């Protein structure tokens, strides 16, 4: 009886470890960080302890909420535009193979230009408004979408394609009834990447000239050695990314309900 109890306990512990292993690792890191910064008495401007950061996050709420709101809006706006442009470009390239051949290498080249170099140029051309920021986010977001979507289209099952063609499906029907639904899982993996990129893109675009946003808050904190605030900013960037990611995961679950990857 007693042994059974212990066994149950053990298997319960195992389950916890398996399901929450990443949470346990994060907590462990935070503990080590906390202790070592106290024990080694690291100065606060060099590396603040997790409790200091939490303290600033709670007490400084009023100093940064407007930054947070601004970045959230900017990311969502850029993300929506980026995904739309990405999907549009992918569909055009898929339906017009000649254009794809001509443009695809250019697309890859466009990703080799560091955003940090491109951003000041965009500021010169379009000023300090919202437009250059949206362009930057769109540029980071649309590429993973295009690549993932094109791959999804290309991996359409040849058997299903064959069936549809024999059944007399037109090019439009092939796209709507087969290729697009077939590519949806691939599109979603692109969208997930784009969602996390969009927050990064927003912050980078804010570094280069803005009056509000997490990027601005971060630059200000950095130049005044408020390292705790830099960490607060990092924390919120992570949280924002996670929330975006979770929303898209939920959407994916709803849209791809009942689907499994079998071609039979």
């Amino acid at each position, binding site marked *: 009886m007693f042994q059974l109890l212990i066994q149950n306990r053990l298997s319960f512990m195992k389950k916890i470890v398996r399901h929450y292993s990443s949470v346990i690792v994060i907590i462990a890191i935070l503990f080590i960080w906390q202790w070592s910064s106290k024990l080694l008495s690291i100065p606060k401007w060099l590396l603040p302890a997790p409790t200091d950061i939490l303290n600033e996050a709670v007490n400084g709420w009023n100093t940064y909420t407007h930054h947070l709101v601004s970045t959230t809006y900017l990311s969502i706006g850029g993300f929506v535009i980026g995904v739309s442009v990405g999907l549009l470009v992918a569909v055009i390239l898929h339906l017009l193979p000649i254009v794809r051949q001509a443009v695809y290498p250019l697309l890859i080249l466009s990703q080799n230009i560091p955003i940090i170099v491109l951003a000041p140029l965009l500021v010169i051309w379009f000023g300090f408004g919202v437009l250059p920021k949206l362009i930057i986010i769109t540029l980071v977001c649309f590429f993973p979408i295009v690549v993932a979507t094109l791959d999804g289209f290309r991996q359409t099952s040849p*058997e*299903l394609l*064959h*069936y*549809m*063609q*024999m*059944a*007399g*499906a037109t090019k439009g*029907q092939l796209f709507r*009834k*087969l290729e697009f*639904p*077939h590519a*949806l899982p691939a599109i979603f993996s692109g969208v997930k990447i784009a969602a996390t990129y969009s927050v990064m893109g927003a912050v980078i675009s804010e570094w280069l000239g803005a009056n509000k946003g997490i990027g601005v808050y971060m630059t200000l904190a950095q130049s005044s050695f408020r390292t705790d605030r830099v960490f607060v900013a990092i924390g919120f960037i992570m949280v924002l990314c996670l929330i975006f990611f979770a929303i898209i995961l939920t959407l994916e679950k709803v849209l*791809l309900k*009942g*689907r*499994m*990857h*079998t*071609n*039979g």
Partner: protein
Amino acid sequence: MGELVATNITKSFDSKKILDRLFFTVKEGEFVTILGPSGSGKSTLFHLIGGMLQPDDGTFTLNQEEITGRRGAISYTPQSPSLLPWRTVLKNVVLGSEIKGEVDFNQAKHMLEKAGLSGYEDAYPHQLSGGMRQRVAFVRALLSPQDFICLDEPFSALDEFTRLEMQQWLLKIWEEHRKSILFVTHNIEEALYLSDRILILSKKPATIVEEYTLPFARPRDQDLFLTDEFLQWKREIYQALQGNLN
């Protein structure tokens, strides 16, 4: 209406002749099987009928209308059931009619019920067994607006027991609807059990070397397999195939 006439069908790939002057007819409501060794160009023949390929020579007509190189004139079920994995069974069986225009969900439900698939309307293909998926694919072919059905070795991936069960099921459903069927297989018993006529295809370049009209009455059941007449036919066709291959 569903009468297919193939006249002088010839097809080569890279100067290698695959099909050599094929002539055959499938009459209205007839079940015709093409029996031949693997790799004898049976699939090529289906691609030609379905308009995926153009014959080098010859024509196909369906109900006296030329359909050579035209897609969507016949209904085709490939070796794998080819169901769309994101569609439910009900949405899958209407695909053929959806491509051609109108969808009748009530008729589809009725047909699924008769095919022994009631209760599975909202299931997804991955939830079904291999035999069930083949049934769904065949119901889709019956519901398609075309009068002529081509079946490309539909039971070759199934185990022996499921295969027997499926053959019987196919006959039962088909005898009610009587759409013309052109069936391809390399299984002699299957051909004898199902068909009205058997056409024997030679090795490459393939041509029709023999044609047998089977006398077995319909409806047929599995007792047929053990009758002397059936076994005699089996021997004859086996010998005909052997003679061809050597």
